[in-house]
């Protein structure tokens, strides 16, 4: 593996590690930044997939061997547009969430919390009335 490619590989590794770490935080803005880092990492992977740099890939220009592969670059461009649009949406969502909830954190799921709480109370071993309406009827 040549020098520039190795640097890119390391960059991808760092971007992915940092991105996934940020993604697992509770603060929404960190999640958004994490997603952006991941997007950059994925685009670099696409770029890496194209192989070494070369001459501009124009029809009728120079030998085939020296040309850069244009296909991954076209894909990376498309992917950049998509991640850009989605990041804008995520930011709007984070802003809306802050306006509506008054805080910038991902909340727990209510139903999950209810089931956990009941479990902790031992409600599942001896169900309370509302959990056992079937037997009530008999």
């Amino acid at each position, binding site marked *: 593996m040549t020098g520039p490619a190795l640097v890119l590989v390391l960059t991808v590794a760092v971007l992915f590690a940092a991105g996934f770490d940020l993604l697992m935080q509770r603060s929404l803005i960190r999640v958004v930044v994490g997603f952006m880092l991941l997007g950059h990492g994925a685009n670099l992977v696409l770029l890496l997939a194209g*192989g070494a740099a070369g001459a501009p890939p124009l029809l009728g220009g120079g030998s085939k061997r020296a040309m850069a592969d244009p296909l991954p670059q076209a894909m990376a461009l498309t992917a950049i547009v998509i991640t850009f649009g989605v990041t804008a949406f995520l930011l709007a*969502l984070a802003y*809306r969430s802050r306006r509506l909830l008054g805080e910038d954190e991902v909340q727990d799921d209510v*139903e999950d919390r209810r089931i956990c709480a009941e479990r902790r109370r031992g409600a599942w071993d001896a169900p309370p009335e509302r959990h056992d*309406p*079937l037997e009530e009827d008999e």
Partner: protein
Amino acid sequence: MNVLLPLPFALPLLGAALAMISRRRRFWLRVLAPLVGAGAVAASVAVLVAVARNGVVAVQAGGWAAPLGITLVADRLSALLLVVSSTVLLAIMLHAVAEGAGALDRRSEPGVFHPAYLALTGGVGLVFLAGDLFNLFVAFEVMLASSYVLMTLQPTAERLRASMTYTVVSLTSSIMFLTALGLTYAAAGTVNLADLSERVPALPAGTRTALGLLFLVVFGIKGAIVPMHLWLPDAYPAALTKVTAVFAALLTKAAVYALIRVETLAFPREHGSRVMLVLAAGTMVVGTLGALANDDIHRVFSFTLVGHIGYMLFGLALFSVAGLTGAILYLVHHIVVQATLFLVSDLIQARTGETSLHRLGGLARLSALIAVLFFVPAMSVSGVPPTSGFVAKLALFQAGLGSGRPLAYAVTGVAVLASLLTLMAMARIWALGFWRPRPEEAGEPPAAEPYTRGGVRVMQAVTAVMVAGGLLIAVFAGPLSSWSARAAADLVDPSAYRRAVLDGRAP
């Protein structure tokens, strides 16, 4: 042919643009959106007819020859799923239009629903037609980006929380999709599926397995395969019910379709098959047990959805014609039935204002029609004969028992058990929601729905048509199975697919 193939997704996308421009004119939207939906159904049927006549149909968009350009392909599997999905999408659209037009509270329908819904229709169409991985990625993004918008309609605190989880999880899997795609290109030098199916066998075994498993993870997250399902029962119930119906019917199924397509075409049969069998068994058990533990109807249905993804994965994991036939039948059956269940729960919600089982009751007395409309798809999803679920499950069980592999026998046993558990979950809804008298804590039911009488009638009629559609699948099980069997044979031996795409390939 060049014009026909892009229509199932181009038409809805064009409609989405039109609807976006005129999103303040409610009446126009309510006419436009179902018309475009009907157009998409017509185009899908035309594709189906073309496929029935000519076999695999392929178009190179933009005139670039196969491995380089954007390829659109329709074979038996994609044509069948196109027709089923566009029909279900149209039905849910009609339901939503009736709900919007019939609402007594005029503020309740956001104008952005129709354009987002049409864009989602387009995205789903493109997923089924995409002939290369990158186009598949773009199709998923179109579909999911519209789903993020639909998910966050009329945001409450609860809905916003759920949609944040949903969006972030989907996006993470999309990034992984992109990465897997880059790695595939680096390894094989192409992302065209037909081209991949020729080049992948030359790769080292380790690379093949790694890529195959990476795609399993990507589509596993999108399709809610245990243990990557945790986002789904959290997110889906929080959306508007009509939106949940679309999501449950199509988003996870699109991922399952992509998984079937990619794993059969690009990655060798034997790799990952054992992993998939184990995952399938886990998905069935966790999903159906979750359905039994939950109290909210939407959550129960969401967990059944997870559980039943396991059946489709089971069919794929067998990698035989019989198994894939079962998986395809199951896809078709489940798209229709799962959408119907959520539409029924929308009716329940309209009638009682409740979705929580411990506060529901006496529905059978309240509305016999809703009871019937719930009973039929509930039996179908549990696989009771003579419904469509029974047909699909029977095909899968036969494939499992015919495979001659001990692990497949075990998973078949788990599948039977999961069917019983599903039946239990449905019986629980029936006993608590419909059969027992209304509990005291629930108070009196509202005197009438918050919709006009006509609106309710149309919503009920649409649901009834969907129920009938589910029954029709059982009635036409014969032709459907033989079509699915031929589609599965095409998947196992992709030479026709390859020929259609790669003839006249670029040098």
